[in-house]
Every structure is written in structure tokens, then in C-alpha cells.
């Protein structure tokens, strides 16, 4: 890959940030352009991904889920990566890059805590100082991950502004970075933010799709018909989609529908947002008619974000990928459904993707059928095609929240 590190995706992306950061973004762009061509860097990253992260993660044919939805479904097991989610792919890569750039201090934001844990882990591994900004509300609902970060030697900095969730945590991290650019690298957790982050994080997450594509060819001798992933900021989805962009494969992103699009309480910026600037990039955002950014709502802290990566906005506009919302209640039920069907407890984020698959095949449980928004194109595709779904993380972090919420649903 000798193409430039992209600054824009169609009309989206860019660098809508204070002037103070421009030099650091230039430096990062140049460093990444060099590092990703550099054999020593790639060898070191490859070794860590294999021996530390545990890659390649398996592509698992989910028999009972397949039976339920009436077509073969493969799960890309990012839940089996070290620290329990795909976030580690990006965190290790960026921490390695930061070290190469001579930065001694790392900052990050986190929503679900997965990216914070992944970054704290990478910093422990490489001996870097680590500060993680986290909304006070997320600190409450993702307590086990806060304990993990502390144990790993990171400082968790609570953010009290706004709804005290992911959006404010990103803002706090950017403000820190404006003041500390000289010795600090900001490890952003998804394909959002100013250029080069959307391209950088995608490059580090494309390993998911690169592996999955060749694993699918090995298993089936064919490409999947549909590739499905949940979309928060959009990193596990773009990482999965990227290898398939030039293939005749349907790409489907699932956004958090929260309490329903009609309720206005959701996080579906691609399905129901407008075009605007959030955290330095032009993309799809949730904003009012004056341009004030709105709070997102999702049962899943990792999807609770009123923006999305600019490359997704471009893929949506060109029609290359399609995006559908799935509501909180459907995701909660799918969480339990997958646990019981496959012995896999998924994170709430990819539970949205599982829920879409169940609903779309008309095979969700009765409870879910009652609360389903019936997203997406009706009816399964061709009989002998198969689906590939990115199971981006495991659900341990969500247990308390899900058990309480399921009790409400079950009445």
C-alpha cells in the first residue's frame, strides 16, 4: 500500500481542529506514512498481534445460530482477542507508533471502557504513561473496566461535562492534547477525529477483514454474501469491510437505534443524522438545526456517540455499504440469545448486529419480534450464500447492566 494516508473520503473527513494541533497532525500523518511501509515496524506489530493479542482470531461457523436464521453464519471472533475486543489492534499499533515518534505520554478516551483497557494494556506493555478520559456516567455503567485500567497503571480521568459519556470524553482528550502536543500522543479509539485518524485507525483494524476474508475462502471456497458489523465510531465495521470493498459482497453496518429513531433517543448518525463537524471531521452527526451537537442514546456505552467515521458517511452516500438501526431492547435480547445458542456472551455492541441478523431472517425470539423495528431489507438473500458477522467483543463488561435491563423486559 503506497497510497497516501487519506485526509478525505469523498466530501467527508478533513481537519476541523484548532490551529495548535495542525503541526501534530502533520507529524502523525508523516510518521504513519513511513511506519506502515517500514518492515521493522510491521514485523514488530505483527509479532505483538500474534503473540500478545492472540491473532489471528478464529472465524467460527456458528451452527445453532445458522440453524436459527436459516443460512450459514460465521462469527469473526474479536471477542477472543486479548482484553476482549478488537480495540486492542488499534491500541497496540498506535502505542507502538507513539513510541517510535518519541512520545512519552499517551492519552485516550473511552466509552465502554474497552478502548481504555486496550490502551492501558498497550501502555503497560510498552512502558508509556497513560491517561484515559471517561465520562462519569460510563464510569458508573462500565465499572469492571475502570478497575482494569487502574490495575494496569493508567489514570482514569472522569469527565463531568454534558451527558458525561463518550462525546465529552473525546472532547476532553482533544483539549488535553491541544495543551500537551509536544510530548503526548492521543490514541483515539475509533475511525473518527481529524485526519489522519480515520485512515490510521482503519489501517490498524483492517487486519480483521484481511484475516476474515482469507479464512472465509479457506472454509467455504467462496466469499460471504453479506458482511455485517456494528457501528459506533465505526472501527470494527470499517476494519471488517475494508478487505471486501472491491468484492461483490454486501456490506451492512448496524447502528444503535436506542429507544427507536422516532423517539429521538438513539445514536444512529448515518441512518437519521445530518452532515456536520464533530471532533474535527466532517461526517454524519446528530445535531439540531442550529448545529448544536445532540446527545446520543444507547444501552451500549460503546455505541453511545453522536457521530461516526467519515469513511462510513462516504460508503453510505456511494451506496457501497448500507446502515440500519437496531433498538436497545432487540440488542439486549440478542445478547442472551447468542449466549444460549452458541455459548458465547457477546458485548452489547455486536449484539446489535446479531439482533439485526435474527430480525432480518424473521427468526428472533417472540419477545424480540414484539419490540423489533424490523430494520433493513426484508427476507434473507440467496439460499446458498453465507454471512460473516464481526463479533467485536465479549460481554463480561456488560453483565450487570444487561441482567438488570433484561429483568425489566422480562417483567
Amino acid at each position, binding site marked *: 500500500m503506497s497510497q497516501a494516508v487519506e485526509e478525505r473520503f469523498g466530501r467527508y473527513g*478533513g*481537519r*476541523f*481542529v*484548532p*490551529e*495548535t*494541533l*495542525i*503541526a*501534530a497532525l*502533520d507529524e502523525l500523518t508523516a510518521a504513519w506514512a513511513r511506519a506502515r511501509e517500514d518492515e521493522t515496524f510491521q514485523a514488530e506489530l505483527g509479532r505483538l498481534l500474534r503473540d500478545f493479542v492472540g491473532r489471528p482470531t478464529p472465524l467460527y461457523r456458528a451452527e445453532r445460530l445458522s440453524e436459527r436464521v436459516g443460512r450459514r453464519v460465521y462469527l469473526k471472533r474479536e471477542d477472543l482477542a486479548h482484553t476482549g475486543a478488537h480495540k486492542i489492534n488499534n491500541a497496540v499499533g498506535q502505542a507502538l507508533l507513539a513510541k517510535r515518534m518519541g512520545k512519552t505520554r499517551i492519552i485516550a478516551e473511552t466509552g465502554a471502557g474497552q478502548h481504555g483497557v486496550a490502551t492501558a494494556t498497550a501502555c503497560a506493555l510498552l512502558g508509556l504513561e497513560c491517561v484515559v478520559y471517561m465520562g462519569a456516567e460510563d464510569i458508573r455503567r462500565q465499572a469492571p473496566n475502570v478497575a482494569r485500567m487502574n490495575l494496569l497503571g493508567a489514570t482514569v480521568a472522569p469527565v463531568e*461535562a*454534558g451527558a458525561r459519556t463518550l*462525546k465529552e470524553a473525546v*472532547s476532553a482528550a*482533544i*483539549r488535553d492534547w*491541544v*495543551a500537551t*502536543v*509536544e510530548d503526548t500522543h492521543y490514541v483515539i479509539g475509533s475511525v473518527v477525529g481529524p485526519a489522519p485518524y480515520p485512515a490510521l485507525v482503519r489501517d490498524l483494524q483492517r487486519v480483521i477483514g484481511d484475516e476474515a476474508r482469507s479464512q472465509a475462502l479457506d472454509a467455504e471456497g467462496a466469499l460471504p454474501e453479506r458482511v455485517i458489523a456494528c457501528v459506533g465510531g465505526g472501527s470494527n465495521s470499517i476494519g471488517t469491510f475494508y478487505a471486501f470493498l472491491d468484492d461483490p459482497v454486501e456490506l451492512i453496518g448496524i447502528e444503535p437505534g436506542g429507544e427507536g429513531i422516532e423517539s429521538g433517543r438513539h445514536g444512529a448518525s448515518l441512518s437519521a443524522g*445530518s*452532515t*456536520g*463537524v*464533530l*471532533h*474535527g471531521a*466532517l461526517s454524519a*452527526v446528530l*445535531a*439540531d*438545526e*442550529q*448545529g*448544536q*451537537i445532540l446527545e446520543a442514546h444507547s444501552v451500549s456505552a460503546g455505541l453511545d456517540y453522536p457521530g461516526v467515521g467519515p469513511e462510513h458517511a462516504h460508503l453510505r452516500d456511494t451506496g457501497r455499504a448500507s446502515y440500519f438501526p437496531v433498538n436497545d431492547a432487540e440488542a439486549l435480547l440478542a445478547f442472551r440469545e447468542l449466549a444460549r445458542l452458541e455459548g458465547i456472551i457477546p458485548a452489547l455492541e455486536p449484539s446489535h448486529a446479531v439482533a439485526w441478523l435474527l430480525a432480518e431472517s424473521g427468526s428472533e425470539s417472540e419477545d424480540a419480534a414484539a419490540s423489533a423495528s424490523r430494520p433493513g431489507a426484508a427476507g434473507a438473500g440467496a439460499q446458498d450464500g453465507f454471512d460473516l458477522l464481526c463479533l467485536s467483543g465479549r460481554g463480561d463488561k456488560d453483565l450487570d447492566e444487561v441482567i438488570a435491563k433484561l429483568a425489566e423486559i422480562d417483567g
Partner: protein
Amino acid sequence: MAEPASPAASSATSTGAGEARVAAAFAAAREQGRAALMPYMMGGFPDAEASRAIARAYADSGADLIELGIPFSDPLADGPVIHAAATTALEAGSGLEQALESCAEVSDRVPVVVMAYSNMILAVGGEAFASRLADAGACGVIVPDLPLGEGAEVREAIAGAGLALVPLVAQTTEPSRRLEIIRIAQGFIYAVAVIGTTGERSGDVGEALRDFVSDLRERAEVPVSVGFGISTPEQVAAFGEVADGVIVGSRLVREVQDASDTEAAVAAVSRFLSEAKEALDG
């Protein structure tokens, strides 16, 4: 005492009416042998009515130019004080319209430069935004998250409405980029005094900052104002020695925040501005 920025900082380079008014304000201060005093206020904060009273107080207390912030939900260049003020203003129902009432209140007396974030301009549309500002009598716009290289349409719309687009230059800005920013600057150049967001800081004008500002002044045809972190009359005087204009933001916003009512807020900002003006004159 501030040296004249450059003789060309007059209407010679000004195409827009807004730019000419800004240039005249700097020239008037220079004639009095001092830098321009440029207080910042958050429009619509703490509410629309109080905000208009504060704008009047700024004009009455010797502001040469007023910088007027439009409340935004996610102001990335701002520290906690201005962010909190924006949140309070939004909660009080203030938006672009209410903030611009404060502009219209004083724009016939003092040139007003509006500070707004990109997303608000894109949401309303560049042309509509610019014409609303022009209607309220604004002279220029500062967009802290629209660096060189972004927002061609926004730039055109602002120029089309006769407003000056004031760029920011940071100490981290690379030399070649600095020259490019200087080349397209309108109204004045906003030299960012700190590596960081807005917010009160203690400290003197260090060597590096002095060099940074004087280098900009040597190269630019428009005046150079310095802002971010300037919080006391003593600092205003010290920065006034090296720049064409001095911007005070968080300190004044905090005075308003801490005041028990509008009257107290007006008294507090007036007192500060009088002291600052005196320090500049001294």
C-alpha cells in the same frame, strides 16, 4: 509602547466594509499610542438580556473591538470557563439569534468580531450565516476550528458578505504555513499566546512569545492581536507592548459567572476593563 503594525493595515488592503472598520479601530488605538483592547464575551450568557447589558458595558468601558462568542455545544478550542458559559447560555435558550442581539446592541459603536465554530456555520449554511452576521452589524468572524485548508465555501460566503475572516496562528504553526495564513489574513491575525485552550493563566510575556508575535507583525499587513490566557491588567499591559491588540476572554466570562446578578456582572466587567485600559495607557 506598541509600534505601528504597518502602514498597510488600512483600507488599502480591505475589500470588505467589515475589514475597513476593524482596520480603523486598530488605527485609532495606535494613534493614542497603545494596543487595542479587545474583550471577549459569550453571547447570550448568562441569558440574552444580561448579555446585551454586558455588551453595552464593554462599549462604555473602552473596548476598541468586541469579540463575541456564539454558544456551541462542543467548543474544542475552549477551556472549562468558556465551555461552561456556552452550556449555560444554551440552557437559557440562547443560540445564534440571541447572541447576535448582543452584537446588534453595540455594533454601531464598536466593531464586533464574532467567534463561531464550524458546525454552526455549516448547519445554517455559509451564506445565510454570513448575512445574519452582517445584518447584526458584525465586522468579522473567527472560526477556531476552521484552519487553513478547510471550508472553502465558508470562506467565500464570509468574504461575500463583506466580513473579515480572522485567522488564528499558533506557536506550533510551521513557518511556511504561517506565511500562507498571513497572506490570506483579513482584519487581523489572532496569535494564540499559549499551547492550549482558552483559560486564565499567570505568567509574563516570555522571550519565545515576544519573538513569535513580533515575527508575525513584521510579516503581516494586518495588525496582530494576542489572546488565550491573558487574565490581569498587568498582563494586558505587557502583551500590549508587543502586539497590536490584546484579547481578554475567560477572566471576563468568569467575572460574569461569579456575579450575583446582571448589575453586579456589569460592574465587575466595567471595573476590569477600566483597569486594563488604564494599564494599556500607562
